[in-house]
């Protein structure tokens, strides 16, 4: 079933506004997506009807809030097909999820002389925590290189894994710049065979394609609510055995079973990793977002974005002096990062903004990846459920204007 983009756009109130008198063409969902009315309403409903702090209240309002909060956790567990709802930890953002693993699992399991393997295409969120962990522990940080085509060069992996010193392999399910979809299941098999655990960054994948943590091969996976039609929160999924063996990360209310003056005992999963008051309405909103996406169908969403991406790559090739980085449309998700001979990425973004087109310019929190391409920055368009070919056409027209203004 193809997506009905016109109908979907009606669900998102922001598309009723214009920018500089032009139709809003939002091509920056890889940074953060827009929100449908159903998600906004779910949060408003909590605040206007059932708000109270969760988990510790015995009155009706608190029970309603707790039930809504835990129901949302259940929805998120089903969304990624987690075997166990208690494996779903609700956090600030994907970044916090990856840091939690690097601190709590990492400091317990990675020691001097051990190796951590990541890839050159990681977002800083799945790079700097490992780099700093390696520094703190005296471990080695090794990179799987990225080829000119923007793919992982897995040839180095067997050699890196051979000595058994590798404790963790961290890899993105999809690059937020080149759009590459690495063969993560194969990476995971190799890593597991060598005794390493596998941490996957699902921030760009979970919003856009079906993800099943039971077949993926990951031991941990983090993703962001705000990139999947939800508010600004994040999720960490992890295998129960690993989560249970880990020490807590943040300490405070709700994550304890008992506190004495000289010691404390920890609460059960998932609460052990959720210290203090959570963003209650936001979690409920993210549950509504999972419902919204599931109703559209993750397969349909993925197919729609593939079509959009193929069309976009075709049309971008028409623009004089424009170069897209990364693999072909059949091997990538819905993002296209590019550079132009005549214009700095900042200028591209500013000039197309005047036409109502929102794209991002910069290193997209992936400086080492940009170094592979010898570019300090790129412009990036990314696609989601509310984009169609007319959006791509608007982008292309605006890019021609960039050339008219800045080519000489």
């Amino acid at each position, binding site marked *: 079933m193809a997506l009905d983009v016109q109908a979907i756009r009606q669900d998102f109130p922001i598309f009723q506004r214009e920018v500089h008198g032009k139709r809003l063409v939002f091509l920056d969902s890889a940074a953060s997506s827009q929100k449908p009315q159903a998600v906004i309403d779910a949060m408003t409903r909590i605040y206007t009807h059932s708000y109270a702090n969760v988990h510790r209240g015995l009155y009706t309002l608190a029970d309603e809030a*707790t039930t809504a909060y835990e129901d949302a956790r259940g929805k998120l567990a089903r969304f990624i097909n987690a075997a166990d709802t208690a494996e779903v930890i609700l956090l600030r953002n994907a970044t916090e999820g990856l840091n939690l693993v690097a601190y709590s699992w990492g400091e317990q399991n990675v020691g001097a002389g051990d190796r951590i393997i990541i890839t050159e295409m990681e977002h800083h969120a799945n790079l700097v925590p490992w780099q700093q962990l390696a520094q703190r522990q005296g471990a080695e940080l090794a990179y799987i290189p990225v080829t000119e085509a923007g793919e992982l060069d897995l040839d180095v992996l067997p050699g890196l894994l051979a000595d058994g010193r590798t404790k963790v392999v961290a890899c993105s399910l999809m690059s937020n710049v080149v759009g590459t979809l690495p063969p993560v299941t194969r990476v995971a098999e190799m890593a597991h065979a060598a005794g390493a655990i596998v941490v996957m960054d699902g921030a760009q994948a979970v919003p856009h394609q079906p993800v099943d943590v039971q077949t993926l091969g990951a031991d941990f996976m983090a993703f962001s609510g705000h990139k999947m039609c939800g508010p600004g929160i994040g999720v960490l999924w992890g295998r129960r055995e690993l989560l249970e063996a880990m020490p807590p990360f943040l300490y405070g209310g709700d994550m304890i*079973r008992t506190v004495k003056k000289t010691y404390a005992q920890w609460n059960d999963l998932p609460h052990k990793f959720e210290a203090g008051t959570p963003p209650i309405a936001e979690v409920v909103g993210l549950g509504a977002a999972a419902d919204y996406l599931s109703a559209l169908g993750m397969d349909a969403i993925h197919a729609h974005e593939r079509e959009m991406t193929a069309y976009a790559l075709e049309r971008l090739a028409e623009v004089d002096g424009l170069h897209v980085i990364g693999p072909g449309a059949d091997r990538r998700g819905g993002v296209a990062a590019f550079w132009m001979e005549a214009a700095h990425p900042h200028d591209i973004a500013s000039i197309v903004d005047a036409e109502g087109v929102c794209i991002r310019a910069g290193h997209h929190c992936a400086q080492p990846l940009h170094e592979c391409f010898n570019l300090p920055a790129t412009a990036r368009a990314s696609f989601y459920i509310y984009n169609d070919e007319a959006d791509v056409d608007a982008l292309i027209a605006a890019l021609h204007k960039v050339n008219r203004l800045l080519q000489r």
Partner: protein
Amino acid sequence: MTSDLYREQLLDHYHNPNNYGVLEGADVDVEWDNPTCGDKIHLTAKLDAEGRVAEVMFEGHGCVVSMASSSMFTERVIGKTPEEVAAMSLDDIQEMLGGIRLSMGRVRCALLPLNALKRGMDAS
């Protein structure tokens, strides 16, 4: 929901619990608590030759739900095998309490005697 909790039957068990006290020569002897609210139970039980629950007594303090649940539980489990006890769930306890649906904040209270006995039988 609230009114269900404080209806006559549960209040009777709370004010006049069955099998309140400590069994001499018990096969199972366990203390268990809910630190969140301070509910505490000391549960003792005798098993028959086949390992079935033959007799149970409890002592403790806590809210109406935990104390009434403990009182009713001491009768409900008589004759059960360790496997049958291990298989008992929240649903069974809610049914035992008269078919009420407990709010999330009260689940641990109601489960106090069951969790104590499960733990005690594991250890014995």
